[in-house]
């Protein structure tokens, strides 16, 4: 039964929240307290967060800005951004040595002339795979052929593809079939009935709730998931359980 007001009925661990200002777009969420208030309003218990400055300016500096958002209460899990440069890898390896890396994020580098090809990314991906560190990769701007070809060279690497839109519709099924260790984050994937259809074809264990707040509103996809015919066990997996398993690996 739908109501004019909504709260989730399972624990929620958001896989994809961006904090801080983009260079060309201030965030509506100004600080950690505001983010926690927004999460409370939508019934989100925990979230994986990365800093906006890592997207197209600097993963290294952006990761430093992320520190101010973390706090002591464990509600916000840092996701460090990485790129295939010595400085970036050294930063992540240092954090990893401190036990602070549960996932990393790879932003698009094709616009800067570096394609997602084995010759450019194998060293980085091999290290992540060896350390059992999962990687988040945004689908917008990604080349699907590069993505599949390169990730197939690292079959043990757990990958979460984020931000799929209806323009990626034809890519999703072949990617999930070709890459058994890939998970699909759902922040923007809206073709009618597709959540249930992907559950039927690939299983709920391959789907991960993320809002991509503050790029998108936090509530709508969570509301959607609670109004599918997913079982309560499947809903719990998608809203939190799958992400916990990925990060604990």
């Amino acid at each position, binding site marked *: *039964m*739908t*109501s*004019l*007001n*909504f709260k989730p009925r399972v624990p929620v661990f958001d896989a994809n929240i961006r904090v801080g200002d983009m260079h060309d777009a201030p965030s*509506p*969420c100004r600080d950690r307290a505001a983010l926690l208030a927004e999460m409370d*309003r*939508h019934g989100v218990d925990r979230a994986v967060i990365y800093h906006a400055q890592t997207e197209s300016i600097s993963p290294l500096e952006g990761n430093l800005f992320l520190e101010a958002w973390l706090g002591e209460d464990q509600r916000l899990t840092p996701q460090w951004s990485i790129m295939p440069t010595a400085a970036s890898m050294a930063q992540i390896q240092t954090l990893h040595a401190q036990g602070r890396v549960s996932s990393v994020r790879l932003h698009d580098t094709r616009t800067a002339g570096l394609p997602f090809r084995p010759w450019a990314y194998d060293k980085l991906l091999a290290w992540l795979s060896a350390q059992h560190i999962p990687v988040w990769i945004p689908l917008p701007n990604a080349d699907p052929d590069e993505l599949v070809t390169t990730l197939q060279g690292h079959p043990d690497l757990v990958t979460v593809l984020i931000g799929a*839109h*209806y*323009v990626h*519709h*034809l890519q999703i099924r072949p990617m999930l079939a070709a890459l058994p260790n890939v998970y699909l984050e759902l922040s*923007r994937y*809206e*073709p*009618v*009935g*597709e*959540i249930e259809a992907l559950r039927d074809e690939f299983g709920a264990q391959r789907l991960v709730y993320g809002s991509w*707040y*503050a*790029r*998108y*509103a*936090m*509530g*709508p*996809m*969570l*509301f*959607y998931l609670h*109004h*599918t*015919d997913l079982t309560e066990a499947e809903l719990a997996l998608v809203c939190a359980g799958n992400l916990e398993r990925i990060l604990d690996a």
Partner: protein
Amino acid sequence: MIDGNKVIDFHGHVGRWDQYGMIDDPALLLHAMDAVGIDVACVFDIFHPDGTTGNDLTAQFVARHPERFAGFAYVSPLMPERMVTELIRAIDELKFVAIKLYPPYTPWPLNEPQWNPIYEFANERGLAIIFHTGPEPQSFPKFVGDIAPRYPHANFVIGHSGNTPVERAQAIAAAQANPNVYLETCSTFRTPGVIEQLVNEAGADRVIYGSDMPLMDPRPQIGKIITAEITDDAKRQVLGLNARRLLGI
């Protein structure tokens, strides 16, 4: 129904757009609609410039579940000689209740004279017209503000409310300046605070829920309204009362 309120979705498509996963299977749509309490979805077919082909397909689609779907007429100035006669047929014979226009499929901005016969017809009949609007040069919402005062007996619904920030501001300005202009909510740009902005700046009596189904699942789109920080009374207006007033259903 949601909390006893009839819910109308003002923006839906008939026709398949397979590359984007848009499948106009009534069972898929009804499953999604029932899951969130949508009583009636307004549908139209924009893929045939003659109007007749798509309108006939829409009529066949509606006839399968006439209590759940309402048809909107589509015509195009690409075939100007057919526009008015097809509108008369669609409204009088097919019993469609409003008009849909899609400027990006034509070379003409929506305030160019090629569109005037449609506006004159809507004005004579007291009909609503929903436009696709957005950043395309044919589709700027500010053009709706140009035409609305000239046709005071017609109502103009700005589909997607302009979609992106600059165009959204134009849409709001058009609604503020003209009592016969309304703002429709569907978009995959689910930016935080958009629904709140539309309601606060244009008024809850001027905002209309739509989903773009089946290109987009209606569940996350209605989730935008349910999870917005607006009053329950505003939600009732957006989800159905305003559309019922415009369509007389």
